[in-house]
C-alpha cells in the first residue's frame, strides 16, 4: 500500500533523515519512534506530499492517503456535523454516522467546534480520517490531548480500520495498544550535509 525507498528528506534546507526505507501492506500498522527533532514529522509530511523528497521514492496509489498533522483543521464556528460533512463531501463520501460513533462524538453533532474541549476537538480532527474513506492513514502524534479512555477508543478505531483492509503509519510517543511494528527513525539520521551547504548564503 505504501512503499518508501532510500528516502532523504529535509526541513528548512537541512537534511534530517537519509536512506530511509519502509513498506506498509494492507492491514498493517507501523509506529515511528524517535526523540523530539528526530524527523518524524518531516518524514510524514514528505510521505503525505506536503513537501518534496530530496532523494528516493515514495510509492502509493493515488488518492489513498489521509493525513492528520498537529493541527486538526477544525473550523471553530462550524458544528461538529458540519465540519465532518464538509470533509466527507470533499472526498466524495456520504455518511458521517460511523465516524461520529467510532470517535465518541454522539450528542455533540450540533455543537459548534469552538465550544468543544481540547480532547473532543482532537477526536473530531481524527474522525475526519474516517470520513475521507481513504485506506492509508498517516498520523502525526494523534493522541495529543486525549485522555486514557479516548486513546483506547482511538486504538479501537484504528484496529477496525486495519481489519477493514486499511493501513496506518503513525508517529507517537505513547503506547497505543494495538499490534504494530516499530521503526526507530534515529537509525536514519542524516550525517552528511550537502557539499554546497553554506556557500549560497
Amino acid at each position, binding site marked *: 500500500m505504501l512503499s518508501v525507498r532510500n528516502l532523504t528528506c529535509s526541513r528548512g534546507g537541512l537534511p534530517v533523515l537519509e536512506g530511509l526505507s519502509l513498506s506498509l501492506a494492507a492491514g498493517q500498522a507501523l509506529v515511528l519512534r524517535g526523540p523530539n527533532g528526530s524527523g518524524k514529522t518531516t518524514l510524514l509530511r514528505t510521505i*503525505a*506530499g*506536503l*513537501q*518534496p523528497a530530496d532523494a528516493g521514492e515514495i510509492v502509493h496509489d493515488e*488518492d489513498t*492517503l*489521509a*493525513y*492528520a*498533522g*498537529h*493541527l*486538526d*483543521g*477544525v*473550523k*471553530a*464556528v*462550524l458544528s461538529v456535523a*458540519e465540519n465532518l460533512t*464538509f*470533509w466527507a*463531501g*470533499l*472526498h*466524495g463520501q456520504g455518511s458521517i454516522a460511523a465516524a461520529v460513533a467510532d470517535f465518541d462524538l454522539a450528542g455533540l453533532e450540533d455543537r459548534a467546534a469552538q465550544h468543544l474541549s481540547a480532547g473532543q476537538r482532537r477526536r473530531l480532527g481524527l474522525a*475526519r480520517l474516517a470520513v*475521507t474513506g481513504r485506506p492509508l492513514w498517516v498520523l502525526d502524534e494523534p493522541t495529543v490531548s486525549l485522555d486514557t479512555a479516548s486513546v483506547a477508543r482511538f486504538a479501537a478505531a484504528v484496529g477496525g480500520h486495519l481489519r477493514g483492509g486499511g493501513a496506518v503509519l503513525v508517529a507517537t510517543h505513547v503506547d497505543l495498544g494495538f499490534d504494530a511494528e516499530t521503526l526507530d527513525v534515529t537509525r536514519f539520521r542524516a550525517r552528511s550535509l550537502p557539499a554546497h551547504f553554506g556557500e549560497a548564503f
Partner: protein
Amino acid sequence: MRRLFLRDLTLAIRAGGGFGLSLAFFLIVAVLVPFGVGSDTALLRDIAPGVLWVAALLACLLSLDRIFALDHEDGSLELLATAPLPLEGAVAAKAMAHWVTTGLPLAVAAPLLGVLLNLAPQAFGWLFLSLMIGTPALSLIGAFGGALTVGLRRGGLLLSLLVLPLYIPTLIFGAEVVRRGAAAEPVASVLSLLAAVTLGSAAILPFAAAAVLRVNLK
C-alpha cells in the same frame, strides 16, 4: 469545489466571518469623501467614479488576508492540499466565495452610494456593471497575494503592498467605464479591457496561487 465554496460562504456569514465589514467600510469612505471635499456638487460629480472605485478596491483589500490565513492557522490548508480537489480548484473556489461576500455586495450597494457623491444618473448602471465585471479580478489577484503571504505572521500589510499595484489596471478601466458612462461617451472598448483583466486573472492566477501555496506549505 462547490462544497469548499459553500463552506467559505458559511464561514463568512457566521459570527466573526467578516461579512459586511467590507461593505460597511465602503459605505463609510463614500460618506466621508463629501465631508472632506466639501459640498461643491460639480466637483463631487467629477470625482465620484474614481472615488467609488478606489473605495471599492480598498474595501476589497480588507478581507483578503482571510482567504488563506485562517485555513493555514487551523491546519485546514494542509488537509485541503492532500484532498482530491486540486489546489487550483480550491483557490478558484475560495476566490469565488470571497467575491460573493465582498465584490458582489459592493457592486449592489455602489449605486446607492453614487447618490451621496452626486454621480450622474446615467452612470449608475455603468457603475454597477463595471464593479460586477471588475471586482472578480480583485478577488483573484487578492487570492494570489494571500497565497504569497500565507505563512507570514501579520502578512496583511505586506499583502496590501503586493496587491495594490496589481489592482491598477482594473482601477483605471473600471473608473474609466463609469466616467465615460457619466459623460455619455461610448464605453464598449474600456469595458472589454476591464473584462479582459478579469478573464486573464481567472485563467492564470488560480494556477499561480496554487503553485505558490505548494511552496509555502513546505
